[in-house]
Every structure is written in structure tokens, then in C-alpha cells.
């Protein structure tokens, strides 16, 4: 049960993120939802490669003990970097939208419809 804790956390965090994206009436909060979903995915990737008692996979001449898997860590790093770029872009869009529309309410930010 305890071993599954990371995965349960992943589900909870992702759920909160999706909730924020679907129901929060503020674009910044929607962006926070995206960010939470990112975190959930990153946590998921990292915990996939976790071995109890393993060491970081960075030694060339590693001691012959267990290591955590290197690939998920590489994936997570890449994903974090991409996530930062996405968040920055989304937030800057929010700034411009607020400047022109004077609001961040998704019910009002919908001049494009139909």
C-alpha cells in the first residue's frame, strides 16, 4: 500500500488539476490546473523508475548496488523544462488577454465561438 502512495498522489494531483481546468472561472487558475497536471505526470515518471534503496544513476564506476532507473529521470527533466516553457507561454498569454479584455473570466474571454 505504502509503495503505491506515489501513484495515489499522482491521481489526486492530476484530479485537482483537471478539476481546476474544467471548473475554475479564472484563466490563471486554469493555467495552474495545467501546471498541476504537469507535476502529476512528472511525479508519475519519476516514481516509475524508483527502486527502494537505490542510488542516483550518475556514477561512471558505480558501486554494485541497486540504482534507480536513469531513463525516467531524463524524461522527467525534459518534461519539466517543457512544462516551464508551457507555463510561461500560457501566463504571458493571460497577461495580454487581461490587457485587452480587462477580465480573465473564461465566460467572458470567448469572443471566438459558434
Amino acid at each position, binding site marked *: 500500500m505504502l509503495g503505491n502512495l506515489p501513484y495515489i498522489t499522482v491521481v489526486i494531483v492530476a484530479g485537482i488539476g483537471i478539476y481546476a481546468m474544467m471548473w475554475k472561472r479564472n484563466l490563471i487558475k486554469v493555467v495552474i490546473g495545467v501546471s498541476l497536471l504537469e507535476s502529476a505526470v512528472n511525479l508519475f515518471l519519476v516514481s516509475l523508475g524508483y527502486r527502494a534503496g537505490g542510488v542516483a544513476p550518475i556514477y561512471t564506476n558505480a558501486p554494485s548496488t541497486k540504482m534507480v532507473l536513469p531513463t*525516467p529521470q531524463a524524461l522527467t527533466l*525534459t518534461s519539466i523544462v*517543457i512544462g516551464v516553457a508551457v507555463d510561461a507561454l500560457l501566463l504571458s498569454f493571460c497577461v495580454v*488577454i487581461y490587457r*485587452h479584455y480587462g477580465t480573465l473570466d473564461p465566460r467572458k474571454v470567448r469572443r471566438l465561438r459558434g
Partner: protein
Amino acid sequence: MTEFIHHIPALIIVIPLLWGFATPLIGRLSKKGMYAWVVTALAITEALTIAQIYLVLTQGTQVYVMGGATYNTTIPPDSGGIPVRIILTVDAFSAFMAFTAATVTLAGGIYSITSEEGTSGESMYYTLLLLMLSGMLGMVMTGDLFNFFVFLEINSLASAGLIAYRVGKGISVEAAFKYAIISSVGALIYLFGVGILYGEYDALNLAMVASRMQFTGLDKVVMALFTVALAMKAGSVPLHYWVPDAYGKAPGAISAILVTASQASLYALFRVCFSLFGLGSNTLTTGWFLISLGLLSMFVGVTMALIQTDIKRLMAYHAISQTGYMLLGVGVGLATLGTAAFSQYGLQAMEGGIFHIINHAMYKGLLFLTAGAVIYRLGTSDLNKMGGLAHNMKYTTVFFMIGALSIAGIPPFNGFASKLMIYESTYLFNPILSIIAIVVSVLTLASFVKVFHSAFMGPKLYDVKEVPKAMLVGMAILTSLIILFGLFPNIAIQYLVGPAAKALANQAAYISSVMGGA
């Protein structure tokens, strides 16, 4: 030289990527130089994609190992039978998609020279354009699930930036925001699936995962995550809401290129359905998933288009509708995969769907460019305010007419060739499919007749000039391909589409190209 040709797949991705980042530097020195620089990059990429098609046709599927000791050692001897490195897997379908993407981007790039001239941040525009191209090419050529995610995000971010390029009192930014939100959600959901697969099979290579696929409960989750996320990125109903916003508000050339960007996701959707899950999954279910998305997209897209009054939003709804044809054709192929019906009509249905991909990229690209030309001269995209442009903008009118006839599937243009193939094969699967496809086609015609009338016909209301040469050249490139594919559909089928369809349908060949052996 013989060594060089094997590096073509990598060069195709790397050239636009590196040249893109160098563009702002050159833009500082000289505007003209920057245009030449960008067009050269696009032309080289285009030439390389053509060379790649030749390579794939003559030598079979190309694999390229990133950072490997040699370019084709997919499984290093000390790796324990796992392809550890990022591998580009270019089969006929990938080469076909790469060619499509590069062609439209070339036309769009040349078109942009005058259409975006004098806007602030012009050099950034070209950087993002080249990044977007690089993303698309990476998406269609990679053989690695995670690498696909990276290219998907490169492409999405660049696209989002370009959609918002003309702020347009915030409306473009609104479109870009919606696009960025929905595509990053889609990409993250996709990444979830990649994580699950990695956890199960310890591999990220598509061929490797496919060969180990067990179809456990978790794999069913992955199927749902992958297919829905990619169908959303491809812009099919009922996940299409971002499409009219994004296509409708992007600059003209970008809308054209966004079409191919969506098609890159469509490619991935097909690739996942055929090469990753393949015959082990219930192809009837996945096939009907594609078919029903296709039918919905076709019908809802075109009926929504009919009532639009914004020229680009109207065309954007058509992009959704035309995607439906591809989903329909390939979906029928998938649903019949592995049965006797596949050789009877399934493969041809797939050829029709895949042929429609390139045709759609050409004519919808052309139409978006003509719409951009109209907006360039009139400064409005509202059809209610247009009229009488045919009196002055003769070339644009002719280009528009060719594009419109082609998208409506009127002979002898290319849209007809692929639609004919779809009509005359899918009806064997279920007669209703063809009937809906034919009806949608005439509705498409109707809405383009509407645009044709309200923008180009009528009394001479505006005293405008024809658009500058560079824009006409961009349109002419696509027009010539439309006519070429329309008049010689056989050649396209034989050298481009047929091999692509066969490559897509053959899961075992895809796996063995990376894993070796039979």
C-alpha cells in the same frame, strides 16, 4: 556521399531547428539576407524530404540512431536487446508526411515574406516558423514515444506563439491561449500513456513496445489516452473546438502550416493504431472509433462552416471536415485489417485516406493563403464586408477557385481523386459511409460558393491591387501541385500513397525495421 545519404533523416530535423535559432542573428544584419536564409533552409529541407522519399522507396525503411556508434545500429550489443537510443524510423508513410509538411511550409514561408513584412518581431516569426517545421518533421519521423512528445511540444509551443503573432486586440491571443491549454493537456495525457507503457515494458521505442505488447488492462488505458489525445490534436469532432479559433486567427501562412501540424498528429494517431496496437487490439473497435470520429467531423465541420461569416473561421471548419475523410478512409482500412476484406477494399480505403492527407494539405494550404491575401488587402476577415475582389485580384481569384473546386471534390482536381477512392471503397464496408461522404462534399462546395460569391463576386466595391509577387509564388507552388496530383493521381498513388499505405498497414515490417529479424 554514400555515407551522407544515410544522415538525411537527421538532417531534415536538424536543419530547420538550427537555422531557425540563427535567424534572429541574421535578421539583425539584413532583412533581405534573412529572407534568403529562411527560404534556403525551407528549400533544403524540401529537397531532403524528396531525397528521403527516393531513399525509402529504393532502400526500404530508414532507421537512424541518434548518437549511436553507427547510424543504423539500433540495438547496441551491450544493451541486452533493447534499443536504448533515440531512433528515427522513417518508412514510406513518414517520408510522405515529411514531404507534405515541408512543401506547405515552403509555400507558406515564401508567402510570409511579403504578408508579414514590416510587422514587429519579424525575425522571431521565422524562428518560430522553422521550429514549427522542425517539430512537425520530428513528429512524423521519430520512432520513439517520448521523443514524439518532445517534438509535439516544440510544435505546439511554436504554433501557439505564431497564432498569437498578430495580437488583433487580444482575439488572436485568446485563440492561442485556448490552443495552448488544450494542446498541453493533450500532450500531458499522452505523456501519461508513455509513462504507463514505460513502466510495463521498460522501453520507449515504438517498435520495441509494440513487439512486447501484452494488452493488459493498463494497455487499454493507454489506448484511450493515446487515441483520444492524438485525435484531439488532429482536430476531430467532438474535440475540435480549438481548431476554428486557432486556424481562424493565425496569420494566413500559419493557418496553412497549422493544417500540416494537425496532420502530423493525425499521422501519430494512425501510427499508434496500426503500428503500436495493431492486430492485437480489437481493430474493429479502434477502426470504428476512427470512422465515427470521421463521420462526426465531416458532418459537423461542414455544417458549421456553412453558417460562418468569417472567411478563415469558415475554412477552419472545413479543415475539420476534411480531416474526417482521412479518418474515414484509414478507419475503414483499420477496421478491416487482417480480414479478407482488407485486400478487397480496405487497403484502397487507406490509400484514399492517406492520399487525402497530402491533397488536403495542398488545397487547404492554398485556400488559407488566398484568405490571407484577401485579408492582406482589405484588412478584414468578415465576409459581410467583402465583395467584388475578382475585378482586381484576378490571380488570387483563380487560385481560390482552384482550391475551392479541389476541396469540393470537383473533377479534375486532386480532391476528387482521393475522394473518389474513398467513396468507392468505404461503401463496401457500409453504404452509409459513402453517402455521408458524398453529401458532405457537396456541402463543402456550397460553403465555398458562399465565400466565392461574397468575397470575389459582385460589383467592384474596393479599389485594391493584386497582392505582391512573393504571395502569388507561395500560392502558385501549391496550385501547381494540386493540378499535378489531380491530373496524374496514378503517379501519386504509385510512388507516394501506395507505399505509405502498405507501410502503415504492415506492423511486422515496422517492428523488424528496428528490432531486426523477421
